């Protein structure tokens, strides 16, 4: 690494605040402080403040974490915790998570590039889980509003349609200016029917594959029950019935394969 970059990192080390990392790990006190600061004075609304900028170095982790083997972080945000947060806080948290994800992906790429170990790669998953949960909560709130006001969910409409191979696929609707009967371009592009000998033969074989997979799964669970019964004849049958609902266990108990390699005790 060149000397200029090193200087930049040293500068960043001195200036950088620990807000983002502490927000990610210890949510409680920070949020309280933030919300208190936001609601203090009306004069504060007049003054525009923006976060400290470190330029492109915000895409990189704190230099003191570079040589470490693992970095201790907390868990991901859960849906229950996010549900009690206000919209404003969720909005702020989304951008914090987004910046963190950008930083982590950059660091992973850079570590791969420089043939070094990326410390604690599970952080990426934790941020992703948090973002998924956050989006889920926002969707819940919006759906509730739309259902109350319009009677519809307000989500992008989807439906199951057949494609050119005769298979069911999910079709996500798009927004158009023209109604469908006037939109000739769309009608031409959506002119998908299926039929013909080749498609029918394909469907026959495809369904055979699906059937075979089902049949094999059934056989597998049947064999597993027989092996369990062979090894421990006194196994709790109720547990087996709940675990393998599609297997006839009473019939299998007398099966030859379910018998153990021992002489049964008679008259004891």
């Amino acid at each position, binding site marked *: 690494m060149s000397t200029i970059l090193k200087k930049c990192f040293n500068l960043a080390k001195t200036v950088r605040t620990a807000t983002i990392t502490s927000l990610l790990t210890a949510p409680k006190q920070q949020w309280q402080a933030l919300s208190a600061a936001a609601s203090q004075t009306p004069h504060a609304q007049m003054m525009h403040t923006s976060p400290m900028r470190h330029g492109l170095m915000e895409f990189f982790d704190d230099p003191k974490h570079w040589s470490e083997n693992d970095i201790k972080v907390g868990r991901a945000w859960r849906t229950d915790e996010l549900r009690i947060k206000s919209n404003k806080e969720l909005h702020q948290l989304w951008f914090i998570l987004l910046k963190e994800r950008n930083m982590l992906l950059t660091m992973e790429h850079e570590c791969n590039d420089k043939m070094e170990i990326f410390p604690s790669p*599970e952080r990426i998953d934790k941020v992703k889980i948090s973002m998924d949960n956050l989006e889920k909560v926002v969707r819940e709130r919006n759906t509730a509003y739309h259902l109350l006001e319009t009677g519809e969910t307000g989500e992008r409409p989807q439906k199951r349609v057949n494609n050119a191979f005769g298979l069911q696929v999910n079709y996500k609707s798009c927004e158009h200016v023209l109604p*469908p009967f006037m939109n000739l371009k769309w009608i031409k592009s959506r002119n998908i029917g299926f039929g013909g000998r080749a498609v029918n033969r394909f469907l026959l074989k495809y369904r055979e594959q699906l059937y075979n997979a089902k049949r094999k799964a059934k056989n597998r669970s049947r064999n597993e029950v027989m092996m369990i019964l062979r090894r421990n004849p006194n196994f709790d049958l109720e547990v087996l019935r709940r675990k393998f609902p599609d297997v006839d266990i009473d019939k299998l108990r007398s099966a030859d394969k379910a018998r153990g390699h021992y002489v049964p005790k008679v008259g004891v």
Partner: protein
Amino acid sequence: MRITQFLASKLKNFSNLPKEYIERSRKQVYWQTPREKNYLPRTVERKRFRYTTNRPWTGQFRQQNMPATMRRKVLIEPVEDWSFFRGDRIEVLVGKDKGKQGIVTQVIPERNWVIVEGLNWHYRRVGAEKEFPGIIIKSEAPLHVLNDIRLVDPSDLLGTEFEWRFTEEGEKRLLWGEITFQPKLSTFEMDIMEEMGIKEERTPAKSYWY
């Protein structure tokens, strides 16, 4: 949160690693169709793993499940309500430590195993060469939860049978933090716009979803 769910979450998450990460780190994809429209989404990957005392996110686990190696399937008996957790006191029913009690240090539910601190151990010799005799390591072998161990009653320190029951307030929820969300007749976006002082006066043109 029900107490069983709470315990189950403790069982899986003591390593502080999310499930997604564990799945990602043990994944072995041999072949994958390009994620394009003209390909069906097909993946050839390892489905069956041999679980041992090595955890799925470690290099040793990958060593034992090297790509393109197949090992015989291990029969796992279903255990409905898992009742053996880290820190539990149990009694060993088999082996040279039969009758002794110990604390569970590690739980391996994929094989119905627990590892008990200081019990059921053996010596391993590691790193032996021609001149060097190697190092002796004492390591604990796993114990099967259905056949080899029994939970210990903390009141009289004797091995007992047990069963799971529900309490009256079984649906207790654990929540931390201040509730700052106030229900309001607006969507997320409308609320944020109001918060930031953004006013939208344009009305969207009529559009069709299909």
